[in-house]
């Protein structure tokens, strides 16, 4: 009853609905622009949320994430260019449908499946987050240290091409986290006498530099992007018969999206491709996949929109961001002085209630705005890249300055942009660095506090049951992440060698 009163108060006494619509609209536009990922879209919005009420700020950022996941499917279907990585699987059948003159139907299926996936994701988010957070309340310094290590162990699964590069990125993130005042003794480290660095480098400055500025730097060396999307296209939502046909792929997509979202590091891209494959495997008409199958659009869209909600589970429960977008959202929490994790449920319950309520409204907002915003998205995608990039650069400069009215912050963002550009060039992934950055302080401070409490005995990490459990899971996770490709290669070898 108390919760219902809170929700009623939010809906009637705050600008929640306007904030949700604003966030979803911004997300759809950002997601629709090729090269502008959900994390960049959210990072660009962050400075605008700084002066907002914390609950409204978080709701707006989360709504943007929801909108961006749908927005990515618009260019995927219309010009065979996914607006986001997670929408890449949607191109396989979505673009084929468009070539067959069924573009409006493909857009409608993408929107409908996205909303269904989002609703299922939200239910799973609410069901899973609080029980996990309640467990986390029992944590002591050794357990927090081990939790940080568990979060960092995700790096092994994020390595993509090179584990060495992923580990290096993670360590650099942790190095950046050491700048400022030492958490135990209080002495300053790596500040070079600058008072601007005494409180450390704010993660959000690094994230905006890494994701948004480095993308602009990369785009500056590339040609103009594809424009010329047909202008008179509209969304056609699926009829009853089609909705029945889409039930199975949507359930498959949402199931996979739930699992992948909860697993830190997996993310929407893997979920959408897995959902596509599994939906084809369990389809009555697998031969239609790749040739304009509606199920081939519904499964990945349901999956990546489910992930947009379930990816918040590890962040809200344990304070571990599992994806780039949730890392930026975590940045939003931090600039408002909110620490994601178990204590958030005790100290700032209104933010959690607001977030859940906002996400629920975001699904309905997406259904409406997905139809209304399409002409605006098409107009935006058809703008000359030169003006769009220049305006985004201006937006970053204005937004970052507005956080603290500090030109020093802008120089940090530019340095992070150059670092991000170099990382893209050398093939180093961003997420390990962000994980190192946001978990570095937690790992170091709790490691040293644990040793102070135990008189320097490292066995404290194994004697504490929760800590030992986390370290065991982290070990299994690392071995599994590293061993799985080797195992697959080993299993594939006889088949490759076979004379048939």
């Amino acid at each position, binding site marked *: 009853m108390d919760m219902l009163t809170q929700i009623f108060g939010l809906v009637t006494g705050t600008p929640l609905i306007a904030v949700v619509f604003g966030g979803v609209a911004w997300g759809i536009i950002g997601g629709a622009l090729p090269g502008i990922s959900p994390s960049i879209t959210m990072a660009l919005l962050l400075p*605008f949320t700084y*002066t907002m009420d914390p609950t409204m700020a978080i709701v707006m950022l989360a709504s943007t994430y929801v909108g961006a996941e749908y927005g990515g499917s618009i260019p995927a279907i219309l010009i065979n260019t996914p607006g986001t990585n997670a929408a890449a699987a949607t191109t396989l059948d979505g673009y084929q449908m468009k070539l067959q003159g069924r573009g409006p139907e493909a857009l409608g299926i993408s929107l409908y499946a996205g909303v269904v996936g989002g609703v299922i994701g939200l239910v799973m988010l609410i069901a899973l987050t609080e029980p996990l957070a309640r467990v986390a309340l029992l944590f002591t310094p050794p357990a927090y240290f081990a939790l940080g290590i568990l979060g960092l162990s995700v790096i092994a699964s994020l390595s993509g091409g*090179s584990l*060495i*590069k992923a*580990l*290096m990125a993670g*360590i*650099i993130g*942790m*190095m950046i986290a*050491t700048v400022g005042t*030492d958490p*135990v*003794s*209080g*002495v300053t*480290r*790596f500040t070079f006498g600058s008072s601007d660095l005494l409180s450390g480098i704010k993660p959000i400055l690094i994230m905006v530099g890494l994701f948004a500025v480095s993308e*602009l*730097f*990369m*785009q*500056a*060396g*590339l040609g*103009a992007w594809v424009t010329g999307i047909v202008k008179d296209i509209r969304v056609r939502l699926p009829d009853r018969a089609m909705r029945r046909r889409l039930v199975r792929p949507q359930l498959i997509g949402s199931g996979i999206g739930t699992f992948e979202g909860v697993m830190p590091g997996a993310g929407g891209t893997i979920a959408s491709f897995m959902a596509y494959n599994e939906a084809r495997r369990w389809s009555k008409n697998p031969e239609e996949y790749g040739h304009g199958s509606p199920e081939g659009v519904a499964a990945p869209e349901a999956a990546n929109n489910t992930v947009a909600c379930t990816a918040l589970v590890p962040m809200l429960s344990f304070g571990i961001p599992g994806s780039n977008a949730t890392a930026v959202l975590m940045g939003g929490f931090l600039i408002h002085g909110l620490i994601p994790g178990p204590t958030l449920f005790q100290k700032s319950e209104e933010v959690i209630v607001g977030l859940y309520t906002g996400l629920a409204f975001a699904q309905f907002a997406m259904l409406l705005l997905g139809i209304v915003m399409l002409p605006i998205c098409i107009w935006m995608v058809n703008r*000359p*890249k*030169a*003006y769009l*990039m*220049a*305006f985004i*650069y*201006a*937006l970053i*400069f*204005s*937004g970052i*300055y*507005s956080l603290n*009215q500090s*030109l020093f912050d*802008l*120089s940090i963002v*530019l340095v992070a*942009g*150059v670092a991000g550009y*170099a990382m893209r*060039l*050398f*093939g*180093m992934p961003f997420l390990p660095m962000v994980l190192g950055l946001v978990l570095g302080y937690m790992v*170091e401070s709790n*490691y*040293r506090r644990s*040793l*102070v409490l135990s008189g*320097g005995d490292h066995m404290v990490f194994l004697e504490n049951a929760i800590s030992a459990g986390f370290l065991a899971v982290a070990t299994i996770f690392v071995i599994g992440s590293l061993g799985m490709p080797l195992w697959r290669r080993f299993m594939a070898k006889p088949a490759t060698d076979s004379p048939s």
Partner: protein
Amino acid sequence: MTKDIVGGLLMLAVSILYFLQSMNIRKSSMADDVGAHGVPQAYAVMLGLLAVALVAKGVIERLTSPAQVAATQEERDALKRSLLGMATMLGIGVGYLLVVSTLGYIVSMVLLVAIVAYYLGASPGLQMAAVAVGGTLVLWAVFDLLLGISMPAGIWADWM
């Protein structure tokens, strides 16, 4: 691969500089056994070892399959274009930081938008001026008037 060797050497340099800097961290009487320098030095050593491993990997790949790792002329040209693009955008950003305190937000931002758009291929003219001035005024209105954040006024401080 050449990229791995260059990247590895860069990271090695970072780890050495970071380690040297960590040696300057002041010792505190409140310090624990690990100390304020302990964890940073461990990070530096780990990064150094990984950097050496990356360089070694790059060298081995170069020695074992030189044909595969050699960049084509097209790839070298693309890299040059990309580096030039990055350096120009960075230069424009640094230029903005240098002039904004004097010229103020509005003039500096109009210049930034116009220069970036011109560099990325927009033709100078009325459209460019409209986008630069219009875009800047929209941003100024949002931040300064709507959100109440005072943007740098520069030499126009008395006028605003």
